[in-house]
């Protein structure tokens, strides 16, 4: 098959003449997924922003920064492997999910800290609620129900061990300082009203 492109860079690709011979993509060569939480501004809660595919936690942090904090204000992010997040059932109407989470019973083993996230409205993102110490994810959710509920309607809870997260380090907080300088990514940088007005008046 001969591909002739308008783009000279495409025509220069050595493989382009034998494109049919390129083998199929290796099946399931995919990386794991990592859940990304973003803090838009100092003092605001972190909220779930999406996922990235990455080969490890450190690269997940880097890719999360590129993918999910490229455009809008950000002061900090953290990421964890999807497999570390324990998920409660999702409720609706006036059913608070914490009313469905049973007590985990007497504590067994050593407690470790867990990060707790709440879903306040279906269709919105999970928001970071705080940290609890527990011996299991289920206990972490139960304790969250006691200490972090704050009288709010909550439809879904996530709990993940704190030591599985990659947090933004203090020395990395300048990663996002240049965002406001990138005016070329801002709609306000493309004002052409005067030019259009002059053109229409002449017409």
């Amino acid at each position: 098959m001969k591909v002739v492109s308008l783009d000279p860079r495409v025509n220069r690709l050595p493989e382009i003449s034998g494109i049919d011979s390129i083998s199929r993509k290796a099946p399931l060569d995919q990386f794991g997924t990592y859940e990304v939480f973003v803090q838009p501004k100092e003092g605001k809660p972190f909220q779930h922003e999406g996922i990235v595919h990455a080969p490890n936690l450190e690269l997940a942090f880097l890719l999360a920064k590129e993918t999910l904090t490229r455009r809008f204000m950000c002061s900090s992010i953290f990421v964890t492997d999807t497999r570390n997040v324990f998920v409660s059932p999702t409720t609706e109407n006036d059913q608070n999910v914490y009313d469905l989470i049973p007590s985990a019973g007497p504590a067994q083993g050593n407690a470790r800290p867990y990060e707790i996230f709440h879903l306040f409205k279906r269709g919105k993102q999970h928001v970071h609620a705080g940290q609890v110490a527990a011996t299991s994810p289920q206990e972490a959710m139960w304790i969250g129900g006691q200490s972090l509920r704050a009288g709010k309607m909550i439809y879904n809870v996530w709990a993940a061990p704190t030591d599985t997260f990659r947090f933004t380090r203090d020395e990395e907080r300048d990663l996002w300082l240049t965002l406001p300088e990138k005016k070329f990514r801002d709609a306000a940088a493309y004002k052409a009203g005067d030019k259009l007005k002059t053109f229409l008046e002449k017409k």
Partner: protein
Amino acid sequence: MYGGGTIFENIKGTELENEDPGQLAAFEARIDRGEKIEPRDWMPALYRKQLIRMIEQHAHSEIIGALPEGTWITRAPGFKRKMALMAKVQDEVGHAQLLYSAAETLGKPREQMIDDLINGKSKYSNIFNYPAFTWADSCFISWLVDAGAIVNQLANAKGSYGPYCRALDRICAEESFHLKYGHHCVIYLATGTAIQRAMFQEALDRWWAPMMHFFGPSDNISAHTETLMRWKVKMATNDDMRNQFLDMYVPKIWELGFTIPDPNLRKNETTGRWEYTEPDWDEFKRVINGDGPCNKERLAVRRIAEERGRWVREALQSKQNVYVTPLA
């Protein structure tokens, strides 16, 4: 960018027969109340299938759509235009990532979607099978193809599936600069020299037919989509989207003194609808089935990118990498 003219499969009358009537009723009631469906909620297999199809096509369109514009980065006139176009193309690829993630929550891994794209099994927006000959073609895409996409995406952002709506909210926020940038480029061509004006007029002549195809086949020949509209998978008919686009952008094109290459294009003030020459749907089908001017090139470039990146993925792969369906 993009998200119009999704090609849905025809729905067979028997597809809902195996669903539990109680769960189906609760699912439909939730949508009627205006609540979102989240990944772990019960949903009919047909809803899952058609959503994967739609979101996946949308994601493919973002990365394929980056190709005709990406071509023009090195030749964009001046440093500012290069910076802007580079940022825009980067955004489009980022949008693909957001959309693949939303589709993944329904159970289809991203790698399988990419495999289906490069092997020609999945579709993407037909408009990117046409070439961008000149800088003005690139400006047409940035302004009007993005405008069409925004019409569609704003509608779909009010749909029923939570992860897709969240991705679209973010995409629409990022798109606002694309649209302004595209309009800015076209105003500069329109108010420039006679050669610049002629260049945009020629681009408009080339791209008008693909733009009319963009929203998909007209309602009287497109797949039966009543169920999808009731489930808020599809938020408006193809003809309604097309009409909304014409309503918003034809006056802006005319204002700049350009001629739209359709002598029958006019707004019927009585009905409030635009009248136009019926687009050539045979041409649309021919191109979407692989016989367009750039289909082979677009897929070839993606295949080569996959092939060239394989050693990196293999080098980074380890047994600790275990794929699971993402959460939201």
